[in-house]
Structure formats: structure tokens, C-alpha cells
């Protein structure tokens, strides 16, 4: 089925963004309201499409729109086209819904900033690019949106680029993303070389006859792309620094939507991964490593936003791992993505609200006892907290429990390992989130002198309240009657696999709840009493390494930055000595021989006359010799 309305989802925010940027200061007074209305209107379009989709029978739910013929070379055709199916509508609603809430929040949060209009222009640009990413019907169209969100992320991380370290953080994110984008472009090339097509439908038709090597290579390249965008191991180092951006950006881009694009990419490429078991195993491994890596970092962070960023990394690790389990896992990866979109965005907005009340202080060691002063923030934050650690019946419980269950159900020793890692992640998640909660809202006051914590204005707490409701209820709504699994089945599980049960569901659920209780209890014992205003320095080497983000930056510097600098130095030397040397040698040899030859020119007329005479005589002699 075709539709004419899909383009408006992308075009409206793009137009608004361009308008706000072109009008400049003239739009300062109404720019934020305009951008918010545009964002809300995309949500309305998305909701209308969603209800229209529900009304249609399952087979004809997806709608497409061809915009124009993009590339036409011989038999190779790429149309710029959009497709809205069961998978992309979930993303459209998440992006526009959470996006609109964060637009509303930003009106208040950024009200003291001179460049609020520019901020909203970038936010709208991000919405447009992200929607293009999830709506594109081929890898090339997806790539355009993929680069667009990367640009938006760069612009917004460096929004306060008058501070050099923020500008550096933006560059770091951009460079790490480029490494991932390289993977995506290679994947597109592999698709073109092996299938002669780049559209999802076109590739899917030809997957059956494809070689295992090509599929595995493409899968691994797509995984690299996902790792870059979703801050997965080994490209995870940028996410912590990305917290330099304004908090609404951290909530929207670096928690709820953009960083989950990697999960979307893998789920969308299910026809590749389902036929490439090696690549799938790599996906699971990357997911497990990152989910533990992020969780461990989260335990040691005192900066509230960086702790949440580490948590985001870890939660996306869960999603990546789940999407590596194939048809059994895709639906749960997307479900965790949606619930995570609610509770993590809510947590970040809560953190922003706390910062708003505490003069932009981010160090949790200088918080404490804020629950009494910020009742609404602490309640909405608390609901997000209960959701992320997975307390039933909050959202995170359903999605995470299902992922752990699927991990165990892969069977055998492998399944036990995967499941145990996921359970361990759940324990650590419960620990660091409880620690964060206790340090911020409870315990003794450790405020910086002059701090006067106060509740945030309505425009800020209203979005937080909506997201908190989502954190509480979305899990049940998505999972009741296996709604999400059935909804996504036409896209990710066409053959309706029967998934074997390795452990009974009730056992896994019990294990997950026990994991949460252990994590919470340990954190409670450790962070219950009075805390000092600065982090203790007499700590084990393990803690110190964790505070340094498990040496992720040191590893990058050692493996890439230093050798890169060395290589550059060698290249500069080579350029100076070999290439410039050759050029200079040519110049100086011409100059030297010219200096010698110049001696011939004396300037004396009689010399020239003599030479002419000699020349004439020689010519004459030669003529004579030739004739004789």
C-alpha cells in the first residue's frame, strides 16, 4: 500500500529547522514554540498513521511512499523511498512522542540561554534526520538519516562550544561515529556487490542464494556501524563525554533515540543476521561485553549524567544482545528499547531538573537529601528508577526479564553463560541506580554553599510526569497478551518460530527479582549513612581503574591516538625529506647549471662576433666535408 503522508514526517521538522536557522535572531521570540508545535504535529501524523495501521489486516499494514528516482544506472535503480511498517511505526511514535515532551521541557530548561532558538532548530533537525533513518526503505536512504543524526548529535553536544572541552567532546563523538559509519558504508558496498541491490526488500529476496562469507562480512560491518552509533564496545568511549551537551539532548539523543539506532539497524537487517550465525554470535558478544562494561563504569561515577550515560551504554548492551538472539530476541530488543526510551529519558530529565535546582552542579557527592525539596522530581525519578532496575510491575521488569529469559533459552552452556552475564548486569544495574538514588535524594545534605534547591517549573515537570507514567505502565501495555511480539512478527519473525524453553519462565523471573534485591541491598548497606563531600581516595586499584572508565580512553590513546600521531610524524618527515627534497633538488640543480652556463654570456660584443665567426667556419667546413 502506498501513502502520500509519510514525507511530511520528515519534511515538516526539516523545514522548521531551516526556517529557524535562516531567520536567525528574528525568530528568537517564537522559535521555540514553533519548533515544539512542529514536533507535536509530527507526533499527531505518526499517531494517525498508527491508528490507520491497526485498522488494516496484518498482511497490508506496511505503507510505502516513493519520493523520486535517486540513482538510475543501467539495471541498478535506487529510489528515494520511505516505508512505514510495524517496526518503524514503533520508532516514529517513540521519536516524535519523547521528542515532543523533550521540546516542551527544553522551553523551560533553556529559557536563560541566548541561543535557545538555535537549540530548537538543531532539535528539529535531529527529529527530521532520525525519522528519515527509521523510514528509509534502503540502506542508502537509511545512511542519509544515519549521517544526519550524527551531525545533529555533534552540533548539540558542542552546543556550548565556547568551552573548549565541550567542543572536544563533540569532536570525539563525531570521530567515533565516523568509525562506525565506515562500517555502514562498507556494508552497503557488500550488499551492492553481492546482491546488486541496496533496498531492504531487494536484498531480502536474494539472501537465500548468497554466500555465507558475504552475509557474515555484511553482518559484521553492520555490527561495527551499530557499535559506533550505539556506543557499544569497542567504540563506546564517546558516550560519557557526550554528556557535555545540554541535558535535554542527553535525554533525547544520547539515551532515548539516536543511540538506539544501532539496535534498529540490526533488527531491520534481520534477514542478514538470521542467515549469518557467526555475525549473530559477534552481536551477542558485543552486547554482553558492553552491558557489563557500562554497568561497571556506572558503579564508580560521581557525575550524575555520566552515571546515567554508563547505564545507557549498559542497557543498549542488553538490546544489542537480545537482537543477536535472532527471531526470538528482536521483539524483546525493541520492547526494551521502547521502555528504556521512557525511563531513561525520564531519568535524564530528572537529572536535568536536579541540576536546574542546584546551580548546574553535576557531582552527586554535593547533592543529598533533595527528596524533601524536589518532591515531584524525586517521585518521577523514583518511578524511572524502579523501572530501570526491573522491579515488577514497572516497565523495565517486563523487557529485561524477557531478555534474560531469551538468553537462557538459547540453550546449553552458552545459554547459561549468556543468561548469567545478563543477570550479573541486572545486579550491578540495581546497585548503581540505588547508589545514584540514595546519593541524590536521600542522606545528608552536602550542598555547595549558596545552593537553594527548588522544584522545577510546570513545563519541566509535566514531561517528566508523562515519562514516569510511561516508565510505570509501558512494560505491561507492551507485553500484555504478547502484544509487541505479535505486532512485530511480520517484520522480524515471518516464519513464526517456536522457541524452546530451557528454563521455565517463572524460574528466570525469580532469579531476576533476586538479582535486583541483591543489588539494592548491597547499595543500601554501602550508601545508607553519612557520605563525605569528596570521593574517598584510599580505594582499591579496581575502583581507581573503574573511575577512569575502565581505561577506555587510555586504551584508545595507546592503540590509536599515539600510533596515529607517530604515523603522522613519520609522514611529515617523509614529506619534508623525500618529496620536498626531490622538488628542491630539481630546483637547485637547474639553478646550479644555470649559474655555470651564465659564464658563457660575457656581454662583450667581440666575443659574440668571434663565436659567430667560428660557428660560420665550422658550418662551412662541415658543408665542405659533406660535399667532398
Amino acid at each position: 500500500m502506498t501513502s502520500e503522508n509519510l514525507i511530511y514526517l520528515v519534511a515538516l521538522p526539516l523545514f522548521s529547522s531551516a526556517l529557524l536557522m535562516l531567520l536567525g535572531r528574528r525568530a528568537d521570540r517564537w522559535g521555540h514554540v514553533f519548533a515544539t508545535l512542529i514536533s507535536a504535529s509530527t507526533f499527531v501524523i505518526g499517531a494517525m498513521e498508527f491508528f490507520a495501521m491497526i485498522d488494516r489486516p496484518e498482511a497490508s499494514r506496511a505503507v510505502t511512499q516513493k519520493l523520486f528516482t535517486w540513482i538510475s544506472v543501467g539495471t541498478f535503480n535506487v529510489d528515494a523511498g520511505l516505508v512505514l511498517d510495524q517496526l518503524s511505526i514503533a520508532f516514529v511514535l517513540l521519536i516524535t512522542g519523547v521528542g515532543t515532551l523533550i521540546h516542551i521541557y527544553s522551553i523551560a530548561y533553556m529559557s536563560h540561554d541566548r541561543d535557545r532558538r538555535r537549540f530548537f532548530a538543531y532539535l528539529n533537525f535531529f527529529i527530521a534526520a532520525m525519522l528519515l533513518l527509521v523510514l528509509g526503505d534502503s540502506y542508502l536512504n537509511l545512511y542519509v538519516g544515519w549521517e544526519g543524526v550524527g551531525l545533529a548529535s555533534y552540533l548539540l553536544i558542542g552546543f556550548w562550544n565556547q568551552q573548549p572541552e565541550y567542543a572536544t567532546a563533540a569532536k570525539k563523538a563525531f570521530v567515533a561515529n565516523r568509525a562506525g559509519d565506515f562500517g555502514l558504508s562498507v556494508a552497503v558496498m557488500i550488499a551492492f556487490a553481492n546482491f546488486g541491490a541496496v533496498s531492504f526488500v531487494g536484498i531480502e529476496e536474494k539472501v537465500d542464494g548468497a554466500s555465507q562469507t558475504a552475509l557474515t562480512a555484511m553482518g559484521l560491518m553492520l555490527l561495527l556501524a551499530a557499535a559506533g552509533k550505539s556506543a557499544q564496545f569497542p567504540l563506546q568511549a564517546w558516550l560519557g563525554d557526550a554528556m557535555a551537551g545540554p541535558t535535554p539532548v542527553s535525554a533525547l539523543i544520547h539515551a532515548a533515540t539516536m543511540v538506539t539506532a544501532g539496535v534498529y539497524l540490526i533488527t531491520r537487517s534481520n534477514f542478514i543476521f538470521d542467515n549469518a550465525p557467526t555475525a549473530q554470535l559477534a552481536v551477542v558478544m558485543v552486547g554482553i561485553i558492553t552491558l557489563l562494561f557500562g554497568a561497571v563504569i556506572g558503579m564508580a561515577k560521581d557525575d550524575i549524567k555520566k552515571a546515567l550515560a554508563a547505564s545507557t551504554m549498559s542497557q543498549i548492551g542488553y538490546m544489542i544482545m537480545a537482537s543477536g538472539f535472532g527471531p526470538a530476541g528482536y521483539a524483546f530488543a525493541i520492547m526494551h528499547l521502547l521502555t528504556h526510551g521512557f525511563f531513561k529519558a525520564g531519568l535524564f530529565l530528572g537529572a536535568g531538573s536536579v541540576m536546574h535546582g542546584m546551580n548546574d552542579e553535576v557531582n552527586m557527592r554535593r547533592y543529598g537529601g533533595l527528596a524533601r525539596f524536589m518532591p515531584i522530581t524525586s517521585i518521577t525519578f523514583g518511578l524511572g528508577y524502579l523501572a530501570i532496575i526491573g522491579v515488577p510491575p514497572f516497565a523495565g521488569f517486563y523487557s529485561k526479564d524477557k531478555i534474560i529469559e531469551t538468553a537462557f533459552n538459547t540453550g546449553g552452556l552458552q545459554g547459561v553463560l549468556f543468561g548469567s552475564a545478563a543477570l550479573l548486569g541486572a545486579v550491578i544495574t540495581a546497585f548503581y541506580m540505588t547508589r545514584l538514588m540514595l546519593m541524590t535524594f536521600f542522606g545528608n545534605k552536602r550542598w555547595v554553599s549558596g545552593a537553594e534547591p527548588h522544584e522545577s517549573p510546570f513545563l519541566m515537570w509535566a514531561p517528566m510526569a508523562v515519562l514516569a507514567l510511561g516508565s510505570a505502565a509501558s512494560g505491561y501495555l507492551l507485553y500484555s497478551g504478547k502484544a509487541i511480539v505479535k505486532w512485530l512478527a511480520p517484520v522480524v519473525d515471518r516464519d513464526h518460530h517456536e522457541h524452546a524453553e530451557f528454563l521455565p519462565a517463572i524460574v528466570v523471573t525469580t532469579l531476576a527479582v533476586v538479582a535486583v534485591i541483591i543489588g539494592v541491598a548491597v547499595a543500601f548497606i554501602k550508601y545508607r549513612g553519612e557520605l563525605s563531600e569528596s570521593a574517598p581516595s584510599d580505594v582499591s586499584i579496581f575502583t581507581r581503574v573503574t573511575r577512569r572508565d575502565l581505561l577506555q580512553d587510555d586504551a584508545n590513546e595507546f592503540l590509536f591516538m599515539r600510533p596515529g600521531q607517530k604515523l603522522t610524524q613519520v609522514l611529515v618527515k617523509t614529506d619534508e625529506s623525500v618529496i620536498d627534497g626531490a622538488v628542491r633538488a630539481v630546483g637547485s640543480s637547474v639553478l646550479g647549471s644555470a649559474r655555470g652556463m651564465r659564464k658563457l654570456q660575457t656581454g662583450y660584443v667581440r666575443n659574440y662576433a668571434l663565436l659567430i665567426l667560428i660557428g660560420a667556419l665550422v658550418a662551412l667546413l662541415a658543408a665542405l666535408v659533406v660535399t667532398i
Partner: protein
Amino acid sequence: MNPTNYLYLSAILFSIGAVGVVVRKNAIVVFMCIELMLNAANLAFVTFAKINGNLEGQVMAFFTMVVAACEVVVGLAIIVTIFRSRRSASVDDASLLSR
């Protein structure tokens, strides 16, 4: 008389002229030597015309005389101008190109 003798005379005159151009410094003398060489060539032309019994050599001699007349006008003008500016008619003094 054997016309070949005129050719010998022409060769001798030309050699004197050539040596004069190379060894003398005074621009006027150098100039006169050039004239001498031109006239030696003229003599050779006329002699060849006589030997071959046609007029082509004679015509060539007239051309040479016209060109020589023009050359004298331009050359003398240059020499006079140089002499006026530097009070010298030595060709070695006019060697600015080498500096």
C-alpha cells in the same frame, strides 16, 4: 684576367674585415670592418655573375648595398648615441648584459 683572382681578393678582404671585427675595440673601426666584409661579399657575387654569365649575382650585390645603407644609418645612430651618453666609443665598455 682570370676571374678566380677576384675571388682570392674577396676572400682576403673578408678575412681582414672579420679579424678587424674581432680584435678592434673602437666601434667606428668595427663598423668599417663590417662594411669591408659586406663589400667583399659583393665582390664575390659580381665575380660569380661574371663566371656564370648571368645577372643574378649582380642583382644580389644591389640588394646588399641597399641593406648596407640602411644598416649604416641605424648603426651610426646607435654609436653616436652611445658616445654621447658615455663619452666612449669602445665596444668593450658596452657590456651591461653581463652584469
